């Protein structure tokens, strides 16, 4: 956002930035492509594998897809519309397992569904509120409404674009409210830091509750997925750093920007009440969100009989899965962390013994719930407050990235 000094500089700057945009377009395309590749991997490979020996066994694929439809309670509708036929084999399109139609036809739990919406909305609002507290801490004068609205504006933009332009957008809106750039960026960054702290707190409680024996395997897998998400979504260390080819922990530390993280936490040492309060608020927020996901699972289970999605999973295991999967949300590599959140969640459910099918079902339900509600709150924030256009924000973000890319290139040379 800092402007070049003179017209010539401005022109040169534009040319350089323009040169850098081409490769960035490849990165953006990759951001979108990866999301779809990961989702296709879940839907086309993991899901049919649950049913048959070969991922490309057509019967297994059909069966997996139909079972997913049944879990979402839309198979019955498809059968009613004759899109899938419950006729004799060979006469209709598919051989449909009647059990699946039965599952699809059972009562839907409106009460848990309402609770799920309520809890997730509360969790989202609490995050906005956290931003308000942080803004206060950094001396940015603003009302609760404005802060919450600014938070959802940024979060909403991240629904559509990869690499997190929403963070920059939130910072911009704070700057519009007469905050300094540094303070605005700090607010956004600290909000993410507390998200990490919340996740860490929930994971710690979960592992302690599970005890040494039960937690070892889960911890190893959590750590591996954690590392995978972080290194995949952030490059393996800044390009200018030389941490050694095989020093993975150092690279993960760099990738997660550990130094800045520690710096951020140290920065709040002089206000321990705020630190503790926000830590508790973050853990509570994540807890509430997990409860919302738990209820959406219950809503799509049958309240009548034994058809329950993930019947045997305990709430603690469930919470650990969601906490680890939320790492993907902190670092928006794809739009709305689409694909990354899902694959981490599915694998984590698998670690706790759930089948790919139920894991995929619950994960997709969770994603639909939180992204749907985020979208609603984003639209609300757009109607309530005047913000720059989404496309302008995106263009700004690209310019910013191109400038940075140029700076990095110069630094390397």
């Amino acid at each position, binding site marked *: *956002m*800092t402007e070049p000094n003179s017209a010539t500089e401005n022109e040169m700057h534009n040319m350089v930035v323009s040169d850098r945009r081409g*490769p*960035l377009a490849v*990165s953006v395309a*990759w*951001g979108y492509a*990866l999301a779809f590749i990961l989702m296709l991997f879940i839907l086309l490979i993991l899901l049919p594998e649950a049913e*048959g020996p*070969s991922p*490309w*066994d057509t*019967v*297994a694929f059909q069966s997996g897809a139909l079972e997913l439809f049944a879990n979402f309670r839309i198979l019955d509708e498809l*059968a009613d519309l004759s899109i899938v036929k*419950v006729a*004799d*084999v*060979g006469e209709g399109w598919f051989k449909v397992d*009647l*059990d699946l*139609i*039965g599952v699809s*036809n059972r009562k839907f739990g409106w009460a848990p569904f309402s609770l799920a919406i309520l809890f997730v909305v509360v969790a989202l609002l609490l995050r906005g509120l956290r931003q308000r507290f942080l803004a206060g801490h950094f001396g940015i004068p603003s009302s609760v409404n404005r802060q919450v609205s600014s938070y959802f504006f940024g979060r909403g933009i991240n629904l559509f674009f*990869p*690499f997190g*332009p929403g*963070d*920059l957008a939130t910072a911009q809106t704070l700057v519009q409210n007469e905050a300094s*750039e*540094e303070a605005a*960026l*700090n607010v*956004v*960054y*600290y909000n993410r830091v507390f998200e990490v702290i919340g996740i860490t707190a929930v994971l710690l409680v979960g592992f302690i509750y599970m005890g040494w024996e039960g937690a070892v395997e889960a911890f190893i897998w959590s750590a591996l997925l954690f590392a995978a998400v972080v*290194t*995949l979504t*952030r*490059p393996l260390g*800044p*390009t*200018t750093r030389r941490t050694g080819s095989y020093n993975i922990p150092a690279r993960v530390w760099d990738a997660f*920007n550990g*130094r*800045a*993280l520690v*710096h*951020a936490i140290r*920065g709040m040492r002089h206000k321990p009440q705020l630190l503790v309060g926000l830590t508790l608020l973050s853990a509570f927020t994540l807890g509430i969100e997990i409860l919302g996901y738990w209820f959406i699972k219950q809503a799509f289970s049958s309240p009548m*009989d034994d058809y329950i999605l993930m019947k045997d999973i305990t709430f603690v295991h469930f919470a650990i899965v969601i906490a680890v999967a939320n790492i993907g949300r902190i670092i928006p590599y794809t739009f709305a962390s689409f694909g990354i959140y899902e694959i981490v969640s599915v694998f984590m459910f698998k670690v706790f013994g759930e089948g790919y099918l139920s894991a995929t079902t619950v994960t997709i339900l969770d994603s639909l719930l939180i992204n749907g509600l985020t979208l609603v709150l984003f639209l609300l924030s757009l109607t309530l407050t005047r913000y720059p256009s989404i496309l302008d924000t995106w263009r700004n*973000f690209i310019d*910013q*990235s191109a*400038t*940075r*890319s140029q*700076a*990095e290139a110069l*630094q390397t040379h």
Partner: protein
Amino acid sequence: MNKHTDTGTAHGPLPHIPQPGVLFRSFRFWVWVCFALLIINVIPDYFVQYWFVFSLGYQSIFWTNFWMQFALFAVYGIAVASVIYLPMRLYAESRMLRNSSVHFGVWVGMFAGWLLAHNYLQYLLAFNGVPFGETDPVFGKDIGFYVYLLPTWKISLTALEVLILIGAVSFLIARSNQLNSQGILQRPQLGIWAKMCLFFSPLYFRILLCFFGAAVVIHTYLGRYGLLLKNNEHSGVRTGADYLDLTWIFSNLNKIYVSTVDVAGIIDAMAVLLHRLNRRYRWITISTGPEDMPPAGQSKQLLRAPLLIGTGLLVFLICFSLCVVIRDSLLVKPNEPYIQLDYIDRHIKATNKAYRLDNIEVHEWNLPGEPLAPETLLASKTLQNAPYVPTWVSYLEEPPDLHHFERVELSESKMVFGPMLQIYQQQQQLRPYYDFLSVDGVRYTVDGQKRMFVSSVRELPSLAFVGPQEWLKYWGSAALLLTHGMGLVMSPANSIDEMGSPEYVVKDIPPQAAGPGFEHEPRIYFGEGTKDDYVLTNIKYMKEFDYATAQGREEFTFPEDLIDGLPVSSVLRRLIFALHTKDVTAFLFSRYIDHDRTRVHVRRTPVTRARTIAPFLFIDSNVYAFIADKKVLWMINSLTTSNQYPYSFPEVLGDKADERAVEEFPERIINYAEDSVKITIDAYSGEVHFYKIADDPIVNTWARVYDDLFEPISAMPEAVRAQLTYPQQWLHIQFDDIYKRYHQKYPIEFYNVEDLWDDADETLGSIGRGLSGFGTGDQMTFSYEGYHILLDPADLPEGVDAGNSGELQFVMLLPFTPEGARNLRSLIIAFQDPDDYGRLVSLQIPQGVFVPGPEQIDAYIDNDRPVHQQVTMWIRHSSEVIRGSTLLLPIGGDLLYLETIWANSLQNELPQLKLFAIRYHDLITSGTTLEDTIMNRKVILGPPTSR
């Protein structure tokens, strides 16, 4: 905001879009990690697979499969990797692109090779195909061409096309990078044609185009053979080429030829166009400035000829297709079905031949007008041996609609199956770790008399089935101690005790046999319930648990001279088993494992063993056990199949019963099959035998591929031959799917579907659990599946020669009604004894004669006063009433229906046979024994009138 790397500031780095190279590095790292994990996961399985087939003496099968898979994987993998890498090497200027193409090439190559290697069985067929010795009626090619070669050609061509497309994508990326780097694409003075020409001018691309063209042309041409498998339901030729496809100029066959010429022409035109453009614009690559541009008109001239040819060909194809459509509407459709009769005839004959229905014996069945006397009925050996104790758990086809499904749920009863499993579980399970998983019908000759028995194996199933006994799930118990089941139990199918419970010829632990013919080795290491499970034998420090004695326990050690089991003879093997079974700590650190003696037994279900060795066979889900030469053997019926038989109608072959089996039984779409292989597995030693029982081209091909696999039928022991059964699903697809329509041999009759049959239905299972919820008004009907009886040839109608009177034949029956009606239309008999094995007879009631069908008989029995009173009384007293199967029994050329009714206490579920009901010549009688029931006819009717 700052335009610098902000790593050091309090707020950390700004969100930004990273450079693609940076993204690729992290992505590359994790892809390699995934590949490494995948390989770590796969390699132990390969080792275990090799050791497994080696232990059974089938290592040549492993190597045959391995080399074919490896060849496909390597050839295609290398080809794909090359077409990705080569253009990058030739054209790309970016070092990052060139480097990353190595990684991408390897990834995509491995993935593509792995996909193609999945088709190794088809390639093995193609290289070894045994001709059918019969030709198709259109092109005169041997059927083997369609079954072996055509699918292989299609797979190969598709693979080639995909290869070229991948190569083209790689070329596009590399070339655009090259031209971009040279700044040629940015030159404003170059028009789009010049840029396109430059882009596609390299010889490499033209070679790709030529190969692609050749592949597509061949693919299109091969489409003509697809006409013989085409769905032509609308014309009455349900599968295969019809009148419009083959005759006159404007036929679909000629349309394929036109398409082939068109594709070839268009590809040629494109090649010519590229060549011309290349010649015209070659100067650009040489010159460096805004030189003399060719006049725009010249470009158009260059394009004119190829475009004209291409457009002309397309227009010709469209016109030709339109002519075919018009001909169909004006000249073909108005003259159907007459014009199609020859083709319908081909279709009927091919379908009957492919499903082995061309030699079925058809007999008209005119039932006698006068009934037999009760004493004569009782003297019938068929009736005496009637299997009223059900020999099945569930031969039921899946309920046909949601309505039925809801009723099954509403009934809250598991008893839609035959009740014998529940009875055995109640009376003979005896110890908490044993279980029975299915019951089977078998026959033995006892004292010179052939008799039918119900038998079930007392297995020690996988932990998933053990239930709430948590202590049995410890590794030491599950893998080291409780290694085997204990014997089988067996009851005559035609007798019960006074309590209505089955009698036993083999029972208890250790098994007590009623005669020497029933004595057997009782240890069951291999059974239907041992899915995903393994055990270790010959361990250190302790022996296996054998069985519980009066107040103690017996121990056992698996004999070292038996062939089964994979030695754990080194640390490396421990590691491989640890990775394979996922029980890492147990295998790596257990002190029980003795490197000199300990063996691991894997793949312990009969189906898994058979399928691991011969995955190409279709396995019938009704796996059954019997005693032969004092061994317990599992028998698996298996079929060789194809879905490429010209003119034959495709159907789905597979198990449609609900919860019948613990294994997955994948379905297959087929239009040709043969009951060709019988597989036996020794429940004690795990020894496997594959017996080839039919002279079928496909099984002969497999015998050529794997020359060690099959043994001839003559090598099958007599005791095993005596237990042959006809495959359930084969009978189902032959009759319930095909013959019900294809028995109409005359094309015009077939076209009009004048005599379509339906498998008969019967009321079966629970009809009430007390007075709450599900009541007698909610009975469920299910379709028949084949059921076994012992049939006296003397009881068949006149004209059906099935052997001498009194020499009982073990047959499978399946009744049919007309579609949309409930009277009886036909009774199918499949002979199963060795001398007549596979003989099929259809007894057909004349079309205009009413003989009540099973559902109607069930209604008569429902309304019979004594039966109704009894059933109502049981339900009022909180018992569950279960209707047994309604048996159709040919007696003295006549037909008798027999149904059993079982009562089951809801307090302690133990079904008992409490009532027999028969329907014979318009009279229902019931009683507590079969004899009483028959003799009650006398009470009602008085002395017999005739015969």
